[in-house]
């Protein structure tokens, strides 16, 4: 190979790499548009006025006269604020209760010694394989028989344990060196003080992740609330949006509908943008959708 040839080869491979790079970015941008477009469209539609929207046979991709009218209507014509409040209560109470339940359970499995631990734990693990669809039928009957339909309690109770999160937390607790526990014991630290003063502070990152994942799950839950509530006063946002679609705003007021959709989606998107790293790490470590 002489100098000339080397240069030609260099140039060719450079061009090929550039081309590949451009194609790669084009493709990635295309997918990003595909993901973002529905979000753009819902925001756009939500600020178009009702008459403007209906007069566009070919929908415009932007609007020069944005209006907040739809948002006002979303909160006045349907009880959106009520749905919001219900969801907030449901999400906060369920998440808080679950955290308490799973922290104690994970602590028992990770640090305490008791008879039958192995058996109880393997029973826990086998429950992880049970799909929600199998148990929801009886739970529906149970809650109905307890007269807890259309109550917060009925909504919350079946969701306050998660075998999976107990497992995740137990693994995390076990990573704390055993010496810390021994050191604490020599100092006369009680188990509970050790849990609250040492384990929980050290495991804070995992606890935050689990909390966020549970909040997302609660905020978006649809099936159970749908079964257990038929009184609009206890609807969560998912059921609310379904109700709006079928009965609200006189069927065709799509801009108002989109305003409601924006309002419902916003809290989680904001939460996501704040805790982006934590959420993505948490999901990568073992979250699932649904």
């Amino acid at each position: 190979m002489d100098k000339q040839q080397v240069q030609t080869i260099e140039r060719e491979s450079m061009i090929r790499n550039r081309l590949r790079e451009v194609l790669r970015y084009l493709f990635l941008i295309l997918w990003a548009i595909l993901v973002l477009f529905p979000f753009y469209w819902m925001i756009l539609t939500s600020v178009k006025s009702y008459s403007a929207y209906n007069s566009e046979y070919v929908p415009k991709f932007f609007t020069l006269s944005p209006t907040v009218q739809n948002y006002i209507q979303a909160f006045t014509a349907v009880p959106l604020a009520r749905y919001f409040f219900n969801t907030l209560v449901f999400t906060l109470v369920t998440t808080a209760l679950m955290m308490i339940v799973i922290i104690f359970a994970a602590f028992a499995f990770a640090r305490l010694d008791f008879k039958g631990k192995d058996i109880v734990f393997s029973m826990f693990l086998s429950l992880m394989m049970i799909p929600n669809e199998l148990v929801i039928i009886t739970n529906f009957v149970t809650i109905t028989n307890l007269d807890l339909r259309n109550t917060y309690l009925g909504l919350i109770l079946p969701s306050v344990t998660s075998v999976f999160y107990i497992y995740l937390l137990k693994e995390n607790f076990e990573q704390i060196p055993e010496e810390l526990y021994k050191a604490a014991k020599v100092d006369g630290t009680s188990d509970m003080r050790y849990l609250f003063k040492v384990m929980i502070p050290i495991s804070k990152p995992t606890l935050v992740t689990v909390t966020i994942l549970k909040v997302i799950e609660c905020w978006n839950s649809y099936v159970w609330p749908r079964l257990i509530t038929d009184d609009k006063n206890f609807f969560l946002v998912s059921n609310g949006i379904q109700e709006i679609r079928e009965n609200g705003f006189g069927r065709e007021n799509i801009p108002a509908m989109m305003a409601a959709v924006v309002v419902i989606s916003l809290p989680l998107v904001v939460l996501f943008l704040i805790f982006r790293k934590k959420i993505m790490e948490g999901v990568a470590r073992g979250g699932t959708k649904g």
Partner: protein
Amino acid sequence: MKKNLTAWLCLLPALAFLLVFMVYPLVDVFIYSFEEGYNFASQSYFGVGLYNYDYVLHDPYFIQALKNTFIIVIITVPLSTGIALFISLELSNIKLIRDFFQTVYFLPYVTNTLAVGLVFMILFKKTPYSDGLVNILIQFFGGTGVDFIDGPYWAKMFVMCFYTIWIVMPFKILILTSALASVNPMYYKAAKVDGTSSFRTFYKITLPMISPMVFYLVITGFIGAFKAYSDEVALFGTDLNAAGMNTIVGYVYDMLYGNSGGYPSYASAAALILFAIVFTITTINLMVSKKTVFYN
């Protein structure tokens, strides 16, 4: 002794909730499924046997739901996994604004399925005022529009699968990008020095290295797709039977509650049939994986 007590006290809440809302229901669903003619109001039944299963398996709505579910599974699982793999590969090859892309791609994960489903509906739906954005695009490129929401079966199925893929993609991309990031770059360097083509590098190095994760996605993908339900409601409304777009899970809920509800026995039988299907498919998946997946 004191130690035992503390431990059981710690476990008590979890155990109590799991017993009431998981273990007991699990037993109960079997019992329901064999109680013939169970009446929800009087809580009585008149026989024990396989009638509920027989009824469900001959119910045209169930057959339709079964067919829909299988189509969704067969189309969305391979397609979403494949596309996600491709996107993740491209993503792992860039440096500039990669973080931005990852954030954007993950966005659908945190959105309310029901809410965004409405946006998809208006994008695909034909109304008296407008044919909807998608149809207008099709017409712009010389095609003929079709109502994707109330129109022919294949069109509805198309939107269905499209939306399902859109929804499951964030999770898969995330898992695959982190799997790809954990492959030791040393292997790529070695392959490069040996002059391995990029396709061969992918096929012989990358894929085997990330195969456990790919397989994990396939298994969870199957399980998730078999349980499809709320995406359907988001697009076609709660009366899925009328739309002809019901799924097995949808059938279970409809039997339990709603316009055609009040039959927990049928619901239980259908749920157990679903569980049997998922269990079988997962077992087959695991068997295949033992043979093909490369573990470190």
